């Protein structure tokens, strides 16, 4: 892992078009400002990990389970 030390209002640049700036430090919290092109998706890591895990868990539905769901959501 690359480790850099920055002061408030200093930034780092990732590639040509992403900058991450340290805006504020309060106790154990750091506020970051991120500038990136809109195709770059930015999430809090714990949220991203959580939703990926949920996607994974749901990604191998089997025939019997699916038939059950079909019945539960039957059109009346």
């Amino acid at each position, binding site marked *: 892992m690359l480790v850099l030390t920055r002061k408030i209002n200093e930034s780092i640049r990732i590639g040509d078009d992403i900058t991450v700036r340290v805006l504020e430090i309060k106790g154990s919290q750091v506020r970051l400002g991120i500038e990136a092109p809109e195709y770059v998706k930015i999430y809090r890591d714990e949220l991203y990990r959580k939703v990926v895990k*949920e*996607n994974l868990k749901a990604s191998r539905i089997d025939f019997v389970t699916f038939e059950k769901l079909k019945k539960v959501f039957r059109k009346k």
Partner: protein
Amino acid sequence: MIEVRTARFGVLKVPEDNIVYFPEGLLGFSRLKKYVLLDYKDTYVKLLQSLDDPDITFGVINVFEIEPSYEFKIPESVLRLLELKRIKDAEVLVILRVEGEKIFVNFQIPLVINPINRKGVQIIVENASVKVYNMH
């Protein structure tokens, strides 16, 4: 019609119009971009099967069949990617997961699809959650 090989649903014969293209894949599945979405006459549940991996199959449902008041924001960039003018024109699906007698409906990571060009994106809705329903 195309033939789709699946790990647990045999070989499915599906009209080509049912292909949905996710330019970014789904979250955690960025390499799988092509899926087929199967509708059924007698149920609101749909099958979302990867065309790139026979093992990847989701059970999904139109969010408004479960939660008519579901609201969410969609970034402008996603609308542009899908070539959608308004969010109202999108088909919004949520993923279902079953554990025992419980159904987990994931309102946090809906699939937003443009029914015209069949492009889709999975987005994260931060203030939404997974809700649990009883099977009976």
